[in-house]
């Protein structure tokens, strides 16, 4: 005899096919969301360091004869520095000496000697206070008011990209919360309908002297098994998806999108998802059964 396990005919319920499928989808989506959040978090962290660390302001040379141009350009550079220093959160700002500038241009222009007297654009290195949060967008506007000066738009753009990534991150977390809620709701639903379908059986088990836990355990065990089965399936679906994305990501190595592969703790987290789902299912089932039973006479 299969013993107590078969007192409730749970194995035949259609829950057995449905719950794993749903949990699989949920785990798949969770895995994607978790991986997405981790990758984005890493990206944002690096970008943030970049943006938070330094900025560059570039000042185009003023027109006119060489001497006048140089004087006007210097004025522009000083005006830009003044704006920068009046901005809270800016730790220091320093105009790049012409030598360094030429060194930067060198790969573009074969020989340097002829450039010495050219009216070149000037660069100002800005160091930001690590602790302060600087609104780079607002700063860009302010700097833009100085004629010829502009904040390096790669950096501005990065800071906007961060804002957008954060939004996506929040969305992903929201989706994750929603997914957990719906998974729990599904398990509660499946357990409740299970109890509805088997109400007579549960009643009779009680009347012949079975404890609440005798019933709850059967539902919980089943929910755990089904949750784990579904979770494993979901993970199996998620992994090829990751590989595809990080493959695609790797081809971008030159671009701004950094390494899309997960850190070890990320993999651990994703791998744990089926267990988390199974555990969630089990606890939900158990609590649901106990809750429902304690309302019976």
């Amino acid at each position, binding site marked *: 005899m299969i013993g107590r396990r*078969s007192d409730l005919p749970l194995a035949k319920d259609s829950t057995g096919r449905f719950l794993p499928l749903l949990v699989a989808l949920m785990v798949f989506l969770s895995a994607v969301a978790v991986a997405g959040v981790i990758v984005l978090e890493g990206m944002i962290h690096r970008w943030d360091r970049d943006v938070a660390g330094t900025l560059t302001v570039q000042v185009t040379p003023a027109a006119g004869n060489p001497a006048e141009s140089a004087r006007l350009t210097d004025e522009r550079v000083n005006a830009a520095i003044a704006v920068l220093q009046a901005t809270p959160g800016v730790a220091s700002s320093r105009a790049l000496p012409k030598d360094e500038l030429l060194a930067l241009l060198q790969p573009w222009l074969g020989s340097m000697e002829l450039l010495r007297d050219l009216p070149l654009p000037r660069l100002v290195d800005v160091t930001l206070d690590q602790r302060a949060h600087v609104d780079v967008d607002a700063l860009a506007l302010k700097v833009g008011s100085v004629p010829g000066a502009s904040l390096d738009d790669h950096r501005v753009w990065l800071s906007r990209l961060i804002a957008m990534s954060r939004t996506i991150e929040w969305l992903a977390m929201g989706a994750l919360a929603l997914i957990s809620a719906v998974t729990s709701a599904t398990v509660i639903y499946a357990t409740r309908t299970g109890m509805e379908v088997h109400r007579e059986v549960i009643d009779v088990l009680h009347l012949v*002297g079975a404890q609440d836990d005798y019933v709850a355990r059967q539902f919980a065990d089943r929910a755990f098994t089904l949750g784990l089965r579904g979770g494993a399936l979901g993970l199996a679906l998620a992994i090829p998806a990751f590989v595809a994305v990080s493959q695609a990501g790797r081809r971008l190595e030159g671009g701004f999108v950094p390494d899309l592969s997960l850190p070890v703790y990320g993999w651990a987290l994703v791998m744990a998802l089926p267990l988390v789902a199974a555990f969630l299912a089990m606890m939900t089932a158990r609590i649901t059964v106990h809750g429902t039973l304690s309302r019976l006479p």
Partner: protein
Amino acid sequence: MVILGRVLETGTVQRQAATRGNVVQFKSVGLRYGSGPEVLQDIAFTLPAGSFHFLTGLSGAGKSSLLRLMYLAQRPTRGRVLLFEKDTADLARSQMPALRRRIGVVFQEFRLLDHLSALDNVALPLRVAGVSETDVQRYVPELLTWVGLADQLHAKPHTLSGGQKQRVAIARAVIGRPDLLLADEPTGNVDDQMAMRLLYLFEELNKLGTTVVIATHNEALVTRFRHPRLIIDHGQVSQVAPL
């Protein structure tokens, strides 16, 4: 009868020290469903250990309700119900299973588990109580044979006829050799001959110490087996000596 005696005497495993004193006591019990009228009013009676009663009354008089109070599927709206001399109002939820294992019930609607075979249905009270599988396999088939279901040991309830289901329900109620047996219309779906045979089973159990209460409409049975009656009429219970 010999076989039955053996099944019941040696077979059932949960035997406790013989119950003494009053098995059931009702003290001015009233029962009303929802906001309806009182179905039972001021019921007071006592069933001593080892007694055997018929419970009669018109359809809708309250027989099943009275039995439900005894097997704790229903709480009285007033008054006190004592089982085995303990007030059931004081029982914690966790103490109920142990108490219920001492009570065997034949439900008016049988309430068999559809997915279990006749054998597994009858074995249920034993398994829930943790009786060994060897004992289960030894005594359950014997009892089912006695109620005429030797051929249907492994049949599921939906493949059984009305009377066969009723007999499985009876076997399930008696297999644990309970201290209190409550049977609600246990012969409504069987022929007179089988009804007789089932009544003998209850009497046999009674002789071994079980307190028995049988709700029935079958006047022929009540007349044939001379046991005191509980009669419900207009919400009142009166105890009447055998006819």
